[in-house]
Structures are given as structure tokens and as C-alpha cells.
């Protein structure tokens, strides 16, 4: 296990005041906030900051850490001596197994079982009863799965506390039926598949957040599907009926006369199925044939001569 220098993580001196530590943490939290940060490792850095702040903002944990870490360098191999925490009373907030799982082994080894997780989650009182924790995971699906449903095998890394109160991570594999009609960002709730309850409390749930792999043609938006539809100039000008292949089946779409590039056509109920089903939104994109071909060039020249058309008329007015 590597020693972690929490002072270095927050960029403060070892004798920094509580106010200095809070100020430094907030400054860095703003920089690495995963919702706004452009840094590629923002999520990981934010976790490091949270971990460092959880220790240095707590008087008792900080005192124990200072005593333990004296003379150690960051990254150096480290093993705490037995009963290193004797004489310290950790009365601060405990950490749930999922919070702890996000923190480093260093943190879990030192504080995972001290007045925190074990105190909170393994309270031996007869009346203590709590619902088990919910687990959250992302599931990556193909867009086609939303049309036809699917059964996906999902592997989850599940943190749990061992009898000594340390966090260990198990791998759990589940076969999950994906219902027809799911859409991006939706949550599939598997009741009773989270952590076991405590003292006879109910088991938590497993919450799977649905995400689609990028599709080469369709862009989903809720249950609506967006598609760019290339058409020829004569199809756009004269109108036509075009077959459009969908993730499940196909549909014939009437392109009205004089359709312009960028115009959007809505085909109701042909998006992702559901109640109500989403719509298919087609964005017309007029594609010109190349004028390299002599015959095409001749036709363009004929149009230039015979069709009085100026798309920049309004700009000159």
C-alpha cells in the first residue's frame, strides 16, 4: 500500500489551519468539479480531494494521520503498525461501503473501520435496523436493444465490509432483462439486488443507468430519434417517397415538394417504442451531384441559364 500525503493533495502546509484547509479544498473542488472541469482526470482528482479533506478536516483523524505519517513520503510503501489508532477516538461521520470503495486502500486501511463504517453499519444494538444500500451502475446498450428488448450480462464491482470492518470488493455477475422502450439516462430498478439490510432491514436496490453506444446513423433524444436524411436535388424539389430503415423495421417517408436542406420532418410514433412512443425526426440534407461528370455539368449549365434563381437575393436588399 502506498503512503498518501493528504497535505500535498490539497497543496497546504502541515501546520495549515482548518480555515486554510477548507479554502484550499474548495478552490481545488471548483477546479476539478466533474460537471464543469475540462481536466481529463477531474473525476479521479475530485475523489482524491474528497478523501484528503475527509481526513484533514476532521480533528481526530488529522491528529492520528499526522502521528502515523511522520517521516513518510508520498508513494512510499507503507503499512500501519498494529493498533496504531489506540488512544484516538474517531467520533466523526462514518463512511458507507460505497463511499469507502471510491477512496484509496490507504484510507480504507486507516479509517475504514474506525468509528465510521463499522460504527455505523455494524451497530450491534438489538433495535438497530436499516435498509441496505442501493447500488448504482451504468449499463451500455445498443440502440436496437430499446426496440426489441435484450438480456444483458452485467458484471458489477460490489464493495462490502468484512468481519473486521475493512472494505473488500466482490465481483457479481447478473443477467438482466432490458425492457423494450428504455431510453438514454433512464434508470432500471432491480428491487432487492443491493446491499443486505441491517438488523432485519430491507435489502437495497440495484439501479442501472441506461446509456447507448454511439449509433452510426441515429441520435437518440429521450424516446425521439434524430436522423440526417440525404436527398438528391430533384427529390427535394419534386417531392418523393423514400424508404428509411429503422433500428427495427423500416418506414416510407414522403418528402414534400420544395423541401430545403435543414428542414425537419417529424414521423410520429416511429422513435423508440413506449407509451407514448417517440418520434422519428428527419433532417433533410440536399446533396448535389458532382459537376465533374460532363453530363451533370451540362445540366447545371442549362439550369443556370434557364432558371432565374438567386439564393442571395435577400442579402442584397
Amino acid at each position: 500500500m502506498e503512503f498518501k500525503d493528504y497535505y500535498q493533495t490539497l497543496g497546504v502546509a502541515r501546520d495549515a489551519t482548518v480555515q486554510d484547509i477548507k479554502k484550499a479544498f474548495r478552490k481545488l473542488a471548483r477546479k476539478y468539479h466533474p460537471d464543469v472541469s475540462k481536466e481529463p482526470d477531474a473525476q479521479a482528482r475530485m475523489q482524491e480531494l474528497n478523501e484528503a479533506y475527509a481526513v484533514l478536516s476532521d480533528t481526530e483523524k488529522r491528529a492520528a494521520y499526522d502521528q502515523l505519517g511522520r517521516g513518510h513520503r508520498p508513494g512510499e510503501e507503507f503499512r500501519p503498525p498494529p493498533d496504531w489508532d489506540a488512544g484516538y477516538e474517531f467520533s466523526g461521520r462514518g463512511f458507507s461501503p460505497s463511499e469507502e470503495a471510491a477512496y484509496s486502500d490507504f484510507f480504507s486501511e486507516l479509517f475504514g473501520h474506525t468509528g465510521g463504517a463499522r460504527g455505523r453499519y455494524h451497530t450491534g444494538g438489538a433495535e438497530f435496523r436499516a435498509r441496505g444500500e442501493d447500488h448504482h451502475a451504468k449499463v451500455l446498450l445498443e440502440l436496437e436493444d430499446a426496440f426489441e428488448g435484450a438480456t444483458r450480462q452485467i458484471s458489477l464491482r460490489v464493495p462490502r465490509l468484512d468481519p473486521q470492518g475493512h472494505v473488500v470488493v466482490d465481483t457479481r455477475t447478473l443477467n438482466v432483462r432490458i425492457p423494450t422502450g428504455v431510453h438514454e439516462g433512464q434508470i432500471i430498478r432491480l428491487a432487492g439486488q443491493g446491499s443486505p439490510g441491517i438488523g432485519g432491514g430491507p435489502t437495497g436496490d440495484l439501479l442501472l443507468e441506461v446509456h447507448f453506444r454511439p449509433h452510426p446513423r441515429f441520435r437518440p433524444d429521450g424516446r425521439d430519434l434524430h436522423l440526417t436524411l440525404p436527398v438528391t436535388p430533384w427529390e427535394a424539389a419534386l417531392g418523393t417517397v423514400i424508404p428509411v430503415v429503422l433500428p427495427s423495421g423500416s418506414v416510407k417517408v414522403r418528402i414534400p415538394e420544395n423541401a430545403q436542406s435543414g428542414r425537419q420532418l417529424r414521423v410520429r410514433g416511429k422513435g423508440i417504442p413506449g407509451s407514448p412512443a417517440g418520434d422519428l425526426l428527419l433532417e433533410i440534407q440536399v446533396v448535389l451531384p458532382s459537376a465533374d461528370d460532363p453530363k451533370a455539368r451540362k445540366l447545371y449549365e442549362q439550369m443556370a441559364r434557364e432558371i432565374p434563381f438567386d439564393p442571395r437575393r435577400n442579402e442584397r436588399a
Partner: protein
Amino acid sequence: MRDDDILTGSLLDESWLTLEQIASACTVEPQWLARHIDEGLFPHTECVAGTWRITALHLRRARRMREIERVFDAEPELAALFADLLEEMDDLHARLRRAGLE
């Protein structure tokens, strides 16, 4: 794979849950959630006879607000304003993706 090996879930935005279940799903304390709902900081929550219906957006909103309150000791209203702005940003990103620009 046998049929009884396969788990079938329900969609969160089609399920009615207790406040405790919702708080657990949002990884916040039930009292925190109840207080914020009472103060109108979670728009579009539906409650019928003590059970609630929420969406994935509420989950993300709760986590964001809780984090901002914790890190910056922010007032709940300020955290809600921050969440509003992030949701606006999410919406703009979604529009860019729909337009094939992101």
C-alpha cells in the same frame, strides 16, 4: 441461461417508491430529501399517498445539490440554483449532440 436466472427490472420513472427508497436511490438522507422537497427545490416530483415517482434527472439533481452543499457549505437554494444551471448546460450539450456537433 435459464429464465429464472434473468432479473427483470422496473423503470424508475414508472415506479412508485417510498421517500426512504428514493433517498437511498439518490444517495442522500431521507430527512435531507424531505426538507428539500418541502422547500420546492425538486420541481416535478409526484407524490400520491406517501409514495413518490421520480426520474433519473431527480437522482442526478439530488447528488449534485448534496455535493455542493457539502463542499461549499452552500445554502440549499444556492445549491438548487447551481443544479438548475448544470441542467441547463446538460440540455445545451444534448442539443449539440442531436445536431451531430458533439
